[in-house]
């Protein structure tokens, strides 16, 4: 798993599901006891506090993540090595150019027919990044590879019956 996937796995898979289990357990067991005294009016009023907490958490998450959007990567070549990639049913046509570790690459992605998804996996098959390729548009994606080896491409947008066969690969050297 990549770094972001690990963050999600811990944040959702561990913390999130613990919260879910805790709430479910507390609410469920509270109905089984003998004490059914609860001030529902007070709970209704406290919903405002809960609203405040939710807004606070969401604003926190927003500011914690919004600066990590990938949109800067789509800005254009910006001095990187340009690699034009044509997507079409059912292949990614990548020119045979030598890519180097540590040297920025700008993929210039276009599609000849339908929408495709350009997803790249590292030599250990760890997901690196993905971006959509919409026909009639030019999509850029800048990336700097950090290790040598053979990278695989998989199509990440359903593009017809050959979709799962649609792939490709390229090599990065030192």
């Amino acid at each position, binding site marked *: 798993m990549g770094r972001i996937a690990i963050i999600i796995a811990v944040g959702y898979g561990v913390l999130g599901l613990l919260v879910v289990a805790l709430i479910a357990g507390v609410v469920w067991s509270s109905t089984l006891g003998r004490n059914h005294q609860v001030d529902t009016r007070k709970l209704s009023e406290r919903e405002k506090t809960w609203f405040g907490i939710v807004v606070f958490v969401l604003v926190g998450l927003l500011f914690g993540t919004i600066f990590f959007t990938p949109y800067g990567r789509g800005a254009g070549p910006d001095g990187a090595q340009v690699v034009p990639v044509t997507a079409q049913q059912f292949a990614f046509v990548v020119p045979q150019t030598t890519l180097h570790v540590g040297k920025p690459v700008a993929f210039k992605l276009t599609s000849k027919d339908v929408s495709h998804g350009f997803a790249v996996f590292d030599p250990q098959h760890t997901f690196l990044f993905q971006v959509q390729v919409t026909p009639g548009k030019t999509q*850029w994606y800048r990336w700097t590879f950090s290790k040598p080896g053979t990278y695989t491409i998989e199509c990440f*947008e359903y593009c017809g019956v050959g979709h*799962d066969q649609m792939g490709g690969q390229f090599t990065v050297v030192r």
Partner: protein
Amino acid sequence: MSDELILTDQERWLAQRITLRYVLTAQAILLVSGFLGILLRDSQAGVGRLGTNWFYALMTAHGLGAFVGWAGFSVMGLSFWVFAEIGFPLRPFGRVFAELTYWLMVLGVAGIVVSTVVMHFAGSWVFLYPLPFHSAGQWGKAATALFLTSVLFVGLSIVTWCVAVLHTAVSPALHAVSKKWTNRLGVAMGFGFLWPKKFATNPRPVPYPVIPLTVIGLDMIIATLPFAVLLVEMIVQTFVPGAHVDPLLAKNVLWWFGHPVVYLLLFPAVAVYYLLVPRYAGRPLVSGNIITVGWTIAVVANVIVWAHHVYIDYPSGSPQAAIDTAMQPLTFSLTIVSALSLYSLFFTIYKSKYQWNAAGTALFLGLVSWLSAGLSGVVNATIAFDQVVHNSLWIVGHFHQMALLNIGFVAFAAVYTWLPEWTGHALYSERLAKQHIWGTFAFATANTIIWLVEGLQGAPRRFAVLPAGHYVTLGQVGSAMAIGTGLFQLPFFWNVLQTIRGKTEKARDRTSPREWSDVTAEAALVLVVLVLVGAAGVTGWLIGHYTDRPTSHPAASTPAEPAASPVAVGKQVFSSAGCSGCHTLAAAGATGTVGPNLDQKKPPASLVVERVTNGKGAMPSFKGRLTPAQIQDVAQFVAASTK
């Protein structure tokens, strides 16, 4: 609530007849689309593999069938019953639209089944423009036109449902003081809780279940109309190839509808929760006026958050990146209504004398799933996270938890609560109902968790066959969980059938009362199953991780074996370069039907070299992508294996 039951017998009979028809038809659709879902999960795991065209055609049918035809159709029908229960009759005008909705939906679903299962349309339920016109020879214009027309019928059905719902919501039963329909609409959206004078009601405030129904009734009209225009354009384009729409615009229009349609399922389900949870808890809904703020945000935000489905589209020269960025805070704001509703519903149950019968249990487990799916939804709503999980199996896990385990469970709870009243027969078996609920929860939850894990490992969604050598063990466990989920629907269908037939199960002799209550025992059982499944999954993953060394896309550029013959290398090139996506070649196990069948054409090596190097027509040029040596090798392989 007794003071609100002011419907005449005739009105009540009418509502129950219409609701029963919707709900039973939807469950019949569940039978078919659920079965397709199991076939797909098994096929992906290599258990009974379907041909690729079959896989994608059935995937298209399953998606629309289960999502709209079952979950959507169920709660659309239940809405009329919710109204009836809180004293809002379906008046003649609304009734006409409710009938129209039913038939448009039935025709639409039937057309979708024919165009996919019989005519092999396989564009997936989102059929991203212009994919329907690029079938790669797999389906014809007639299939495309029938499919698009059928989806248009479903869309119109949603609009007519909105008309029926809004007409019912603003009825005299609302007790709004104002006679103006715009003001009444405000009352129905709960504005009276915030501005009691301007949106006055007499004598009682608007019942809570009316609010989500009004909100979605308004939103789905706004959401569906532009989509209907796109569908008409696409139907025209099927026959007039000159017609054209900007594909990025079309994507945005699709999701303009595609996002709110999720809430066509969720919001009516919330109305059922608002009605039934207080009933089983024996106390009114714990809710402050603030919940109206949530719904006011929802009615606006719901129709302006579509672009979170295109977070990873930001081509140069388009404003898409800015739109997408704006969608993150907007999407976040939309989670507030879920957060408030969950607060209200959980605290309504908290320390109450909650009835843990099958229906009450289903509602509770539905809420738990809603919370869990809501949190994974926050991950999807965050661009920095979405760029990883987008179009992965994570998404599939997220929405199955939302649609099957949350909305579906509301439908199950409603059936167990009201089927006796609709049919006039007592529920056949409470015992079977509980088994159904707990069994489905355990197996389907395990299944969705496996999807989430697979997604985080980079497994793409909508793959007939996942990249070779990966996700094998997880897929097989998931396949077993899907079969388990399916088997646990059998008591449901049997229960419904027997109830309709007026049968009752022979009471089981229970001489020794159990120490544990039924609920505790069954919940414990489910927890044990979940833990076992989790342990099995982790063990399987570990075994898979250390034994199945990735063999996917055998690298054509790395020498395979030191002394491999050109034919052997060529075979590897054939499978790694994607040739099998289009061509049939028995020797490579390739069954593609887009390009010429190589077994039949038997091309000489020289022709293969020429075509692979330069391409022709739909065939791309592989010059630059494969080395000349690799092209020679693949040509040798093709020639040798078709001699």
